């Protein structure tokens, strides 16, 4: 495993300069002819990646959260909910996307399904754990006051479980946005195309793609952290500090 000689600082900086230029002005494709990169293509691919990520995250939340709420409220099915989370982590993302594309076909719907599969386990597990860990005394008190079961879930359990549930949503979002990077393998062009199709975009495109994907993931994580902070009740925030 021979490593290449360490690049000179100048060469190092110039590659970052190339990546910067790639994003803002574009360059000629390695294959010749057309111009690739530039703000318009960057925005197009970034929009696609956000769209695919949010769609898959929404599907995962819609499928996993009700099940987690129901099981958690009834304090049943711990084995199912927890082992789903454990098994989900073992799914090799690359194999999932590749198999989905090869066996069922390429396209947006298939990709969103594959990505949602990655998002379901952490949301299911964390929703279950968050709800079932709510102090039973609070739940009994609410029941004693005459609250309906849906009222208990909505007004007592859910607010108290927000930090844990959002933790699951954030794990799912990070995994989905990361895997959406290899979506070009399933025929949907996201920012990952800059990284995967090096023969078209060159090293400048690869580095630019890597930087953009990292920024997108950090921005998504920051947004979700802010949403979590806004959704957490004042009482819980006081408790934590």
């Amino acid at each position: 495993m021979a490593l290449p000689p360490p690049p000179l600082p100048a060469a190092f900086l110039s590659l970052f300069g190339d990546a910067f230029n790639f994003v803002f002005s574009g360059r000629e494709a390695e294959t010749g002819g057309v111009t690739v990169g530039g703000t318009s293509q960057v925005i197009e691919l970034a929009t696609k990646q956000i769209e695919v990520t949010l769609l898959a995250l929404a599907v995962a939340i819609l499928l996993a959260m009700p099940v987690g709420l129901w099981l958690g409220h009834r304090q049943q099915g711990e084995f199912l909910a927890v082992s789903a989370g454990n098994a989900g982590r073992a799914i090799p993302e690359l194999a999932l996307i590749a198999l989905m594309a090869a066996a069922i076909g390429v396209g947006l719907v298939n990709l969103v399904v594959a990505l949602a599969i990655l998002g379901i386990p952490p949301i299911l597990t964390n929703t279950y754990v968050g709800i079932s860990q709510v102090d039973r005394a609070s739940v009994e008190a609410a029941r004693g006051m005459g609250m309906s079961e849906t009222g208990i879930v909505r007004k007592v359990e859910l607010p108290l479980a927000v930090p844990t549930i959002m933790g699951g949503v954030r794990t799912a979002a990070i995994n989905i946005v990361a895997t959406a990077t290899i979506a070009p393998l399933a025929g949907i062009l996201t920012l990952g195309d800059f990284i995967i199709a090096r023969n078209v975009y060159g090293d400048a495109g690869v580095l630019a793609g890597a930087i953009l994907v990292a920024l997108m993931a950090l921005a998504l994580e920051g947004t979700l952290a802010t949403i979590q902070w806004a959704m957490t009740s004042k009482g819980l925030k006081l408790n934590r500090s």
Partner: protein
Amino acid sequence: MIEQLAAVDQSFFTDRSSGNCIQDNKLFCPGWVVDNYDRYVDPTLQHLVLVGSAVAGGFLIAFGLAILAHRHRFLQTPFLAGTGILYTIPSISFFFLLLPITGRGSLTAIIALTAFNLQIIFRNITTGLRNVPPNVTEAARGIGLTRSQILWQVEIPLAMPEIIAGLRIATVSTVALATLAVFANGGGLGTEIVTGSNITFKTGIIVAGSIAVIMAIVFDGVLLLVGKLLAPWKRKQAIS
């Protein structure tokens, strides 16, 4: 090992199986596995090296950080934020951010996977240390143990279940993520999923993916056993 792999790739389309596995490309072709099981040996070994190095490296660094943050509480927030950023950056992007520094190869993949691991392990170690009941450490101080004796003989053993739990999550996630190392020329089972630009050979994808899943389950089971050996009181608790 990785240089050899390039040579193997050349012969991908020479179908050595008795049937026409590649030509037919059914969902799963058992004949392919029978005739080609040997081609998965090297990628599996490379995968083990990637996961082993990344988890070991991640554990050593996270352990050091956690001990530091345990001594100096004010370090906890910056360490959590820093490892959080490393965890959030997708591995595939991390590979290529390292491109100008370490180039392509398994080292690049190992660094990125290590960076991913840090937060999971760090968070579990600090939670484990924090959950040690104060009266236990008080008692240890009372019988005259020094600070480092308390750490090594009382706090870390009591935090062991949490530490092992973190290692299990990190290891299983890393086994799955290491399939992406193929994009950084880092070898591993991903080489049998994406061969050149070809990702259409289903049997190959299923075989390589299954090896990764089995590897994750085996690692998880082994760590579970290690955890039970290192924290026998937990096992007794579970029985009663």
